[in-house]
């Protein structure tokens, strides 16, 4: 594996010291990058070079590097998580790039995701949307009913699962020209709307979560479907349609 030819690439990386500072794109040349390296391993090598030269390394969010924690959040060549489909930045590999290519790396851009430093943005707005209703109100007791006493039609269980696989990375917002969080909000609303456990609080949930998303500064959905294309987990925009139905019926009955 290690015998494959290395890539020479040019990086244009967004550098910004902190939330208040003005940022700019800096240029870095990288030589002989192994195509087997992940994109973030390529940035690790850049950072090691920067540290050895006494420069400040590029700050970026990352953690599991398995495509599941949702920390990584890079806008690569104009796309959230880069050129791959159904893949997070951390699972993107350098073999997807050409020798001699120039790669632009920017943070996710949205008013509701302010920049903290370099490529790191503040996505706590997502947490606050979840606080507004992303739960079933059940206490820990050890006395809930037996799990099999709530049979759930397999089709609904599978759809609820598909919606629940959202990793909360924010690519949907970064991909949307309105910076809408509709795919994110609808994933949680759908998960519970499809399950009997979620029915009791369904109306308040959808109304409160949508309201919170608006207050956080996320824009409206105009059905371009860009979010679905860029979502690393393939969350379907059918969920947005379901959320809209839930929202409408909840608004009418309130």
């Amino acid at each position: 594996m290690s015998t494959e030819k290395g890539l020479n690439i040019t990086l244009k990386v967004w550098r910004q010291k902190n939330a208040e500072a003005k940022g700019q794109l800096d240029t870095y040349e990288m030589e002989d990058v192994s195509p087997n390296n992940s994109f973030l391993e390529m940035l690790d090598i850049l950072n090691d070079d920067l540290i050895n030269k006494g420069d400040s390394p590029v700050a970026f969010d990352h953690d599991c590097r398995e495509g599941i924690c949702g920390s990584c959040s890079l806008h690569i060549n104009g796309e959230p998580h880069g050129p791959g489909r159904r893949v997070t930045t951390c699972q993107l590999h350098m073999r997807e790039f050409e020798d001699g290519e120039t790669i632009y790396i920017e943070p996710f851009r949205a008013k509701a995701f302010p920049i903290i430093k370099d490529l790191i943005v503040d996505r706590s707005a997502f947490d606050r949307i979840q606080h507004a209703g992303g739960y079933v109100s059940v206490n820990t007791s050890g006395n809930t009913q037996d799990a099999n006493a709530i049979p759930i039609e397999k089709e609904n269980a599978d759809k609820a699962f598909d919606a629940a696989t959202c990793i909360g990375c924010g690519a949907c917002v970064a991909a949307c020209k309105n910076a809408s969080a509709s795919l994110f909000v609808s994933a949680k609303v759908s998960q519970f709307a499809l399950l009997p456990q979620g029915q009791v609080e369904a109306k308040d949930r959808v109304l409160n979560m949508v309201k919170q998303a608006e207050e956080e500064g996320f824009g409206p959905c105009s059905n371009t479907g860009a979010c679905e294309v860029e979502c690393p987990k393939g969350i379907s925009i059918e969920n947005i349609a379901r959320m809209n139905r839930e929202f409408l019926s909840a608004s009418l009955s309130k």
Partner: protein
Amino acid sequence: MSTLDSKIPEGPLKDKWTNHKNNINLVNPANKRNIDVIVVGTGLAGGSATASLAELGYNVKAFCYQDSPRRAHSIAAQGGINAAKNYQGDGDSTYRLFYDTIKGGDYRSREANIYRLAEVSANIIDQCVAQGVPFARDYGGLLDNRSFGGVLVSRTFYAKGQTGQQLLLGAYSAMNRQIAKGKIQMFNRHEMLDVVKVDGKARGIIARNLVTGEITRHSAHAVVIASGGYGNVFFLSTNAMGSNATAAWKIHKKGAYFANPCYTQIHPTCIPVHGTQQSKLTLMSESLRNDGRIWVPAKLEDAKAIREGKLKPTALKEEDRDYYLERRYPSFGNLVPRDVASRAAKERCDAGFGVVDNETKEGVFLDFAAAIQRYGKEQAHIKGIHNPSAEEIKSLGEKVIESKYGNLFDMYMQITAENPYKTPMKIYPAVHYTMGGTWVDYNLMTTVPGLYSIGESNFSDHGANRLGASALMQGLADGYFILPYTIGDYLADDIRTGEISTDSPEFVEAEKEVKDAIDKLVNSNGTKSVDYYHKKLGLIMWNKVGMARTIEGLNEAIKEIAELREEFWNNVRVPGDANEMNQELEKAGRVADFLELGELFARDALERNESCGGHFREEYKTEEGEALRDDKDFAYVSAWEFTGKPSEAILHKEDLIFDNVELKTRSYK
């Protein structure tokens, strides 16, 4: 002499937990409002504890280094969670789960703790379903199960290959409800850097705001550590990049004994190392061993030809393959426990049969061809296709495999650029989980009063080897069903204490220590990056304190780690400032702690003159190469007391008493 009191309740095994719950002190609801609890870490253990304590009425302050509690590394757990529900009617029971776990742990854990774990396991599934966790279901709408290594029943509940994610999001949602009510105060992007003791009791922590660099004091009546394991002491592991032992190590230095540090789980099915610039390893779920067959070439020349790319694995005839797990362990075959499977892979690769073209030639095949054939024929039969062509069978079989393991196969393809439907996967063992951790008594309290440790960060339930799908079970058992009861027993004495001040000399002193250590790191002006030292430490650990350990290797490791630590403090370069977001500084603090922990780890391995579970000493093995336990001299928990340096730590022993199971040589043959 032992100073350890495990506080295991009296009475028959099956009544201990019930009796204990009936006899411990409770705090009345009005008083709970006046009591603060700090929880560090928001994975399955920390998240579930935080939510449950807040529901009970305590004021909880929760801390995580990630930008959201939802990102804790429990999220990456793939395969499933065990529970003794016996929904499959295959003979499962609380006792059987207890027995499998104690045997799987190679008889190095406490009977009472494990029985309690098995007892509450069924409640976990009920609780999670009530929260809306979408577990896999069958067409009748009921919950589905699968099988994991080291057991003969199907008791594993799952949500495709993302069970950890779904369970964590369940705990996160329970937290969100309490955050919305103001019962949980959430500190994201904060790292705990020390615990504060007042009059001998844990009364707070010192934390660093990772966005601003500000050092802050936080007080509480009790502190709960739920910060996970220390697998990243090996640098390369399946842990997240940020997973660290700092909270667990800092409390060790303030008086919490550290138990069984040498018990590490090396998971058999991970994607092999590709080169020196690699940053982490990726697990391929144990569930793949339900259908994959593990093999290497039977002849050395074939292994060489495969490594050099001159021979395709699919071209090798059946008789030229060595399905070594099926050969050595006919009754469990490919589903032997993790420690056994990992050692067997190492044995074949050390003998020269490895199939991966990297420096160490470490890698074996995990082959789905037979399963594809089997499922393909079954599907053809179901669909009424008579005399199906080989192509038809293959295509039908691949569809079944895709429905079961699609996301894992995609991930494998993404990382390796090879298609595992067409050619066998290559896998090799990697560090995955640490069974050792902070010593705790039956109430999950450490040796410091008011200081608790739950989930992977404690040592309590898995002995020397953890069975698959049991980590999620333990994390949620501790957080949902055990700690919320046992902590009340301690806090019942604190109802008149009132708010703990953060202005006391103890807080001032602890904050100063933290700031001094940070200043030392940012002003060290050395020449080598933090990663340079972390990688060096990882290599020492992997080569000398990894899957097979010797007295010589361990002695060398102890010396080399101490020297490396010295060099680190003199020559590390941490760019930037303490008063800003500084990811290199974060890493530096964590590696400084790993450089101490690694030494204690090696000392523990050196002291334990036997082989058991994940701890394998070359000097102690049977003629067939299996682990050779010494129950007469080593049926105890090692609990280390810090006295200033890892080399001077004092060993305390908690004898393990087995009243309900007979100690046997673990056999999966």
